[in-house]
């Protein structure tokens, strides 16, 4: 997936989340990982890439096509993406199965029987076969996040965007969820992931974009970034994340 981001700016009031971020990812990259300290702009960049947020200026090309920023264009682009958030964002009034099936029916025009079959199948594949009828509050954090992953993946998105998907989970649940993400990435799912799980990032990433204060400090193949980071900032960041691991 060829991604070209040029001079992306996004402000929230007086706070500048993205301050002219630019980078390019070559076409053969399957899994892009966004790294950086909290507040570096990872989440904002991920949301703009996925058409959840409109940038104030700048441009994004994915596979040579420029993303549009009208409401209709963004809705259309969003419908081709799958999202998973740090706080799951499941619909609390719906069962796991309905959480997955509802968007299939209403957004992707799949008939009710097929949608519920697909939802069931995806949840089963994610080890949630016995929880399909449960509502989010009746499941553990790890199970909820796996439902969220099933919801994102069931419509077969062109791009899967994961925003710190394990930051709200304990180590055991984190591992459940990371196992799934790795499986998806290895099966060829195009993914953009922002994370603090540095060991996992190393394992899954093809390419790394390292941000600081809304600016891209480094954009490099994963092995190169982890073995020989060019900037002092990236070196310090990696050192601080691996110190106790």
């Amino acid at each position, binding site marked *: 997936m060829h991604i070209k981001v040029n001079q992306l700016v996004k402000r929230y009031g007086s706070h500048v989340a993205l301050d002219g971020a630019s980078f390019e990812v070559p076409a053969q990259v399957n899994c892009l990982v966004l790294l950086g300290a909290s507040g570096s702009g990872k989440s904002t960049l991920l949301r703009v890439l996925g058409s959840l947020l409109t940038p104030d200026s700048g441009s994004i090309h994915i596979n040579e096509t420029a993303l549009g920023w009208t409401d209709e264009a963004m809705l259309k682009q969003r419908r081709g993406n799958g999202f998973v*958030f740090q706080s799951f*964002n499941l619909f*609390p*009034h719906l069962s796991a199965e309905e959480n997955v099936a509802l*968007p299939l029916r*209403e*957004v992707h025009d799949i008939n009710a029987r097929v949608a519920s079959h697909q939802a069931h199948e995806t949840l089963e594949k994610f080890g949630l076969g016995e929880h399909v009828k449960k509502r989010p*509050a009746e499941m553990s954090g790890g199970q909820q996040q796996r439902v969220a992953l099933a919801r*994102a993946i069931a419509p077969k998105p062109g791009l899967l965007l994961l925003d710190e998907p394990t930051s709200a989970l304990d180590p055991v649940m984190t591992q459940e969820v990371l196992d799934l993400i790795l499986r998806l990435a290895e099966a060829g799912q195009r993914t953009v992931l922002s994370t603090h799980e540095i060991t996992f990032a190393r394992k899954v990433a093809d390419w790394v974009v390292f941000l600081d204060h809304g600016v891209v400090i480094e954009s490099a193949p994963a092995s190169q970034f982890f073995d020989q980071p060019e900037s002092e900032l990236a070196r310090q960041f990696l050192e601080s994340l691996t110190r106790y691991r």
Partner: protein
Amino acid sequence: MSPESRPQSLLAEVFWNLLLCLGMMLGIWAVFHAINYNWHWESLWKWRWLILRGWGTTVAVSALALIISIPLGLTLMLGQRSRWIPVRLACRGCVELVRGTPLLVLLLIGYYGVANALGIARPWLPGVFLLALFHSSYLSEIFRGAWESIGASQLEGARAVGFNQQQTWRFVIFPQAFRRALPGTAGQMVSLIKDSSLLSVIGVEELTQMVRSANAQAYTALEGFIPLAILYILLTIPLSWWTRRIEERFRFET
């Protein structure tokens, strides 16, 4: 565990209900005994049909006002969220003005002023409308609170799965806001039924008005007010019970 789901034997519940009822009746008896009140039920009994006719009017007027107040409240709430400044200000102003005025004043000005100017002679028509308007301004605030309690993360989740605005409203906001608005709405409906008694001041022949009239004609003083209370409770208790049932059905943890 919520109080409703706590296991409890039916027998204990019946026992306590009976005991509390007995206590209450004893209290009422003690009050009237203390003031040496002489009951004359037989003279009031002659006017029972008058009272029941008033009750019928109360049921009809309240039901109509209830049916109007919910869409009206919804409209006022949506109006307050409108993109157009005049619509927003008009709805906000309407809610504040109506909420800030006693229903009695609203009815007197609305009937003897506005309805008179418009040439509307039947009091029940402006009566029902004003009752509905008064309660819809409270309802709009209940609805607004319920809507605004749906967090930003839910709205982002809705956008993320590709819902457009209508779908977000229909599948994400409405079902969750509905559940949260239920208890407040139920309370408002009970208030509406009781407030319908104020329509007597503009000459609607509803329950309170008819009880007063029966009391006057039977030369009784307090006798009428006991059936009056009972007849209102006969309307409000089933309403509370019914909304509780709906709440149970839509219960989910967030």
